[in-house]
């Protein structure tokens, strides 16, 4: 238990002053829960590779000054260039920035609000926010529940198909810490594409704790793309909890190319039959970067399908972690769960820790997993060079190929190209 760290992550006031007392009480309860259980440490199995010591050592300001300009629109445009256009919602240090955002293009089928003023205490939705066996695994989600000043709520109407992606942008600024959370509901048959981008205003320290909770109603489809290219001193804890109902589809593609210390959790609960989830991620850790991807797919209903494909590259003194847990609950017959984790070590001082975890309690289950840690293929490198490619170009070509296969199945070619472009940018750092 480490109360001192949790206290360091607390804004002076939880929530907004205008909030009803019941909501504030709910925040306080969530906070107390975190304090009582403590933040995760080295003894917690799911956190043993991701020590919080950087977070403990640094000082962050959690009281946000709205009037302080952090970034310009031009800077933001440059950061987002190459991405498909769509409505933008920009959060600076966890708080919405109306001047940088552009939500007018959102169709009426999408309801967007920040429910700060709502009294939602009557709905006890804290229960399914805390899903883990070990309460400390949910500590950061609890912090977000308690301290995210302006939670975001998005609802896509039944059978509505969004033409353009909604782009969520997070910008962290120097010395600032922030908690952010969002609720996303796709009603039956709705289809939405979301691109979430994490940026830093500078290469100075910043901290963001982000938690997204999503419900996909029957036959809804969510395409979620994550582009994390925060600065070299950015600390980030991010978590997604997605509950899927009958026949719904989730397609996640993530690139973690930046950050100093990043912990990303994806928890998928396939609650009703015939839902499918596909999680695909790439992480690149060089220098002293640390990126930890934890996924948990809970097959609770029959005939659901999940696939995971994560690729990691570690160079310098970087450390990459992939932990993929798949649980097939009693009765989840006909489950098809495939997982693959492929990793390249480019330096003797780099480290990759990859661990598949399968727990199967049902019959007629097809489950597979494969984890590899290897080095760049010297034979392939030589082959490319004998055709005239300089060694650096040949290496880049092989690294690109290694990572890009994780994005091969992206349905939108334009977005895939943009993601590959961001990938190349991160890979170029390795040369």
């Amino acid at each position, binding site marked *: 238990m480490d109360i001192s760290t949790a206290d360091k992550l607390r804004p002076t006031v939880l929530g907004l002053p205008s909030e009803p007392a019941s909501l504030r009480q709910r925040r306080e309860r969530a906070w107390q829960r975190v304090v009582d259980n403590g933040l995760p440490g080295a003894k917690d199995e799911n956190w043993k590779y991701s020590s919080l010591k950087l977070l403990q050592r640094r000082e962050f300001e959690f009281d946000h000054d709205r009037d302080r300009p952090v970034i310009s629109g031009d800077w933001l445009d440059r950061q987002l260039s190459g991405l498909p256009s769509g409505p933008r919602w920009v959060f600076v240090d966890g708080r919405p920035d109306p001047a940088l955002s552009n939500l007018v293009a959102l169709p009426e089928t999408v309801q967007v609000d920040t429910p700060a003023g709502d009294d939602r205490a009557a709905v006890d939705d804290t229960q399914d926010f805390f899903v883990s066996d070990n309460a400390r695994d949910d500590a950061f989600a609890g912090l977000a529940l308690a301290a995210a000043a302006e939670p975001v709520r998005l609802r896509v109407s039944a059978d509505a198909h969004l033409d353009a992606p909604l782009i969520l942008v997070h910008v962290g600024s120097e010395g600032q810490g922030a908690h952010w959370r969002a609720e996303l509901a796709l009603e039956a048959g709705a289809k939405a594409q979301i691109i979430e981008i994490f940026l830093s205003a500078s290469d100075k320290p910043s901290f963001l704790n982000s938690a997204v909770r999503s419900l996909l109603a029957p036959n809804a489809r969510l395409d979620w793309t994550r582009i994390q290219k925060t600065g070299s001193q950015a600390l980030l804890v991010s978590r997604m909890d997605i509950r899927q109902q009958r026949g719904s589809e989730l397609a996640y593609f993530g690139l973690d190319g930046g950050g100093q210390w990043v912990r990303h959790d994806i928890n998928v609960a396939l609650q009703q039959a015939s839902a499918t989830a596909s999680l695909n991620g790439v992480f690149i850790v060089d220098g002293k970067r640390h990126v930890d991807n934890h996924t948990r797919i809970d097959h609770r209903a029959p005939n659901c399908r999940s696939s995971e494909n994560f690729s990691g590259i570690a160079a310098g003194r970087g450390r990459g972690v992939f932990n993929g847990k798949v649980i097939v609950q009693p009765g989840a017959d006909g489950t098809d769960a495939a997982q693959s984790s492929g990793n390249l070590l480019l330096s003797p001082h780099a480290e990759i820790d990859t661990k598949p975890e399968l727990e199967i309690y049902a019959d007629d289950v097809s489950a597979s997993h494969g984890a590899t840690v290897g080095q760049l*293929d*010297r*034979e*392939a490198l*030589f*082959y*490319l*060079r*004998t*055709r*005239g*490619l*300089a*060694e650096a*170009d*040949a290496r880049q*070509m*092989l690294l*690109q*190929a*290694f990572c*890009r*296969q994780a994005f091969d199945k992206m349905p939108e070619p334009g977005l895939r190209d943009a993601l590959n472009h961001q990938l190349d940018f991160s890979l170029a750092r390795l040369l």
Partner: protein
Amino acid sequence: MLSITNLHATVEGKPILKGLDLQVEAGQVHAIMGPNGAGKSTLGNVLAGREGYEVTAGEVLYCGKALLDLAAEERACEGLFLAFQYPVEIPGVNNTYFLRSALNAQRKYRGEAELTGVEFLKHVREKLDVLHLDQDLLNRSVNAGFSGGEKKRNEIFQMAVLEPRLAILDETDSGLDIDALKIVADGVNRLRSKDRAIVVITHYQRLLEYIVPDRVHVLADGQIVASGDKELALKLEDQGYAWLQEGGIKAVAG
């Protein structure tokens, strides 16, 4: 074009080439034959610049340049091409992207304008036909999932696209059925020209029925032990390599 003098090379400390001499002029096709373990593939790998091969003595001049001082990619840009005995599968690297990047890297090195996508496709289409390769090969990953024959044809296709000055074919005939062999030979023969030299490394005489060499050399125990015209290959076929050990060398070489 290629002048090798007293070449000695070791692999993991073990001497493989032990004083090899070879002269190849532009416009010629030379065949290098020899038993397994004679050093045939080592010669190809040393010339292409593969790591793990240490040259301990000797000199290799290629178009007047000290070849061994150049990095593998510089050798390629100077016009040297090695068709691999075992072409490497590279999943995820698209053939077109790879070949265009390689060709443009070579053109850039030589101070020539790089080819656009359209120009490149025009350049490669005709070469595909020669090797009876389907156009969808261009969209596949380099050698990934190719059959043995496809891989060898792909090597010759790359050679046709890159138009080297000196091509070394390392056991390109191994693993090919007769139809594939004819296709490969046809591809090679179309590249014969007065400005280009080709060195065919092979264990069997069969390929030389279709790619008729100007000179045939026998490589045994790290040295060229006999040289002659195409009749030498037939004699080897007829009498086997054992004949070399029985003192037949001098008769031919003399």
